[in-house]
């Protein structure tokens, strides 16, 4: 035991300063940021056909569809958006901006709960990367307990369903059960392109609709997978403790 203590002490403090400070580059590899067109008018039409998931239109990049495959990078777009890309509405994901996504006015869905949030992770058909990024929030680098956020073992004890994966037909009922089992007030966070739009699997036969066709979604966290910092931003947008709100940027 003593040696474990020695080990822990010798490593010093690993924990990120986020959300007090901005996310570091170590936390955020290039694909951790949304692609943003350099000049929308020319870049978007040029890059449109490169996108394998049809995220790029003439006028916008649908971050909810983007799987960060980097094919448009170098064709007028670059991964230069803000890590804090989580939105409270689906349509906000279409906004073109290098800055953080603004939070709409009005109280966040779980403001009444104060600091503490209890999460239940629901996998409705993921590739596991999103699950593991959500669970990575518990590691010493992110230590989400310092922010009053905890994982629970049952939706009965949770406030928030953190949904990962593209909803398969088989998971529609289990998802509904989990949603019903949440006590009110409750919230749902869609983590990753899969639950938001189907991601890379959108349109495959045998899959259910996107998540917001099944349960109301309060926060959308784009990415494939979103980095832990991006997920943290999405969670904090539930109770108004995210960086933008803190810094009065909205």
């Amino acid at each position, binding site marked *: 035991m003593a040696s474990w203590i020695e080990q822990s002490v010798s490593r010093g403090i690993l924990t990120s300063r986020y959300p007090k400070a901005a996310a570091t580059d170590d936390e955020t590899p290039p694909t951790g940021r949304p692609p943003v067109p350099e000049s929308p008018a020319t870049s978007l039409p040029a890059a449109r056909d490169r996108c394998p998931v049809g995220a790029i239109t003439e006028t916008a990049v649908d971050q909810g569809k983007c799987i960060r495959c980097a094919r448009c990078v170098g064709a007028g777009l670059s991964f230069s958006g803000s890590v804090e890309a989580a939105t409270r509405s689906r349509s906000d994901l279409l906004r073109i901006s290098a800055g953080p996504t603004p939070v709409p006015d009005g109280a966040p869905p779980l403001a009444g709960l104060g600091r503490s949030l209890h999460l239940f992770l629901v996998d409705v058909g993921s590739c596991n990367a999103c699950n593991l990024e959500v669970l990575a929030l518990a590691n010493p680098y992110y230590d989400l307990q310092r922010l009053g956020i905890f994982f629970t073992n049952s*939706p*009965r004890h949770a406030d928030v369903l953190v949904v990962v994966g593209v909803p398969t037909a088989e998971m529609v*009922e*289990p998802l509904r*059960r*989990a949603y*019903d*089992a949440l006590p009110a007030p409750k919230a749902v966070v869609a983590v990753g392109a899969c639950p938001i739009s189907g991601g890379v699997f959108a349109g495959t036969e045998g899959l259910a609709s996107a998540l917001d066709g099944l349960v109301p979604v309060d926060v959308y966290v784009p990415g494939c997978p979103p980095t832990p910092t991006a997920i943290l931003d999405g969670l904090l947008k539930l109770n108004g403790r995210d960086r933008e709100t803190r810094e009065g940027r909205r």
Partner: protein
Amino acid sequence: MTALLGFVLTAAVVGFFAGAALSVVRRDLGYATALAASVLWLVAAVGALVAGPVTGPSWSGPLGDAESLSLDGLSAFFALATAIVWVATSAYSLAYDDRPSPLLAFCYALTLGSIALLVASSSLLLFLVGWETMTLASYGMILQAHGRSGRVFSAAFVFLAFGEASTLLVLVAVAGLHAMSGSFLEVPVATAGALASIVFVAALIGFGLKMGVAPFHMSEWLPIAHSSAPSNASAVLSSTLTLAGAYGLFRVISLLPSPPPVWWGALMLGIGAISVLLGALFAAVSEHSKGLPAYSTIENNGLILVALGIALIARADGLAELAVFALFAAFYQALAHAIAKTALFLSAGYLEHGTHTFDLNSTHGRAKDADRAARLGTIAATLSLAAAPPLAGFVSEWMVLEALFQSYRFSAEWVQFVGLLAGAAVALAAGLILVAMVKFLGFSFLWKPSATGPTARARGLAAPVGAVGAVVLAVGVGAPWLLGLITPSVAAFAHTAVAAPVGSLLSIPDGWSILSGSPFGILSPPAVPIGLAAGAAVALGYFALGGGFGARRVEPWMAGSPPGCDGETYTSFGYSTGIRIMMRSVLQTREVRTGTGAGTRAELATPVSYNVDLEVLDVFKVFYDDLVRFGDAVAAALKAGIMTGRLGQYLAYILVVTLVVVIYVAAAA
């Protein structure tokens, strides 16, 4: 006043026997008469406790003594406890018994009458008559089990064998008392010595057999569980037949010299503690809706012995205050158990009516279809037996534990050690019995609705369960006053004036709290529900001020699977398997597999299936099984003779005994 009560008393006892006779005419008439007699019996008991000893008209006994039916403080307590039980069981029987034959009603009333007779007898001889009649009549009741299979007979045989062994030992005790005092009348004996010890041991084992305490517990649960005796009979057997045993024990000890040798109490404490532990353990792993309560009876009777043992040791050590408190604990334990257990057996009968099974693994279902009275009654009974406040069992178990805690006051170190072990056993048992009761409540009480919905008969069955449940609550909350009521009983046992162990605590009024020593522990049973009510008032206030209920009904969360997935749910057996495995050295748990293979790939190519059973073993049962086999062999040998296994014949035996009693009474008159 007392003269009138004397008549009421006599009328009650005669009424039971009249009920037996009338049942031959009409079943209902028998039960109704028994119900009326039970009410009279209750009046006489309360009268005797409040107004002092009651004596009915006397006659001269066969040995020339003047005999009468009477209740002194001690017998009045047992009359009170049995009366409460019988009022409920008789009312219940009216709805319950739908057998074409009147035999059950006949044996039922006869059992009640004989127990009343032995409790109210003023001479030991009359006591013996009552005792033996009780044994035979209750044997008759057990034979009325449905599906009179070989198991019924072997169970009944064990019961009878134990009953007769018990009678034999009781005879020894009575003979010893006679030798010491020269009389069959109940006079305290002053001389101590070897003879007194022989009487004590004979009484302890003889009456212990009827109480079903370890290692004689087979006589308690086997007839009930194995034969599935009718539920009204089960309640009478488990609650009041064992009370009769306790009464005999209390009575004989009260006649023995005081202070007793310290080993008497230690022996009793040891037997009691073992019973408590074994009873609780086997209750926790029982899957039978009547076997479980039957094992719990063993536990509860063990607690009576524990308290009485403490009282005897305290008396030997000159700890008067502790002795009195422990006696109160013993009496209260007997009362609390009898009432709660009645509700539980009646509930098992209700359950059987709805589900046609005694197997707790197949009785689960939804609560909302159950009759509210039965539901609340069962909740009260199980919680009381699990010692949850503020119910009767909580108060009595608290008292027993408080008495046990004071075993450090004993002078001999080895006795302190016995007290320590007993304390550990009782504490462990408290945990085990909680498992048992939660299991009964969870897996039986929340049962499937009967196909037809609540019938008139079901309501007739439910009402007594609910009523007894209310009494369980009252006996818990009203404990300080009831302790005052039964003070004459303790005084009669101790042959000295005593005061109920009640006093005051903080701002709770004087007399509202039970004190276990001066000073030791303190408990105020009425304060608990008052506190609960105060909490409820806050909640009600919230609603009164416009707070909403906000209730939402959702499915149970089963990790995302539908509830009752594949039609399977957790079984009652699974609930207690942890105990089976943990206590495997005591339970001799073993797994029996039939048709199993190695599970290799080649083998699994063709679907295999096997059967697995996790069996537990009561070591004593092995011995008694052998006994049954021996008995069966004897019975087979005598088959051509008297033991034909035919009901009519057993009935004839009972009639002969009844006749003997009638002749006895006539001769006395």
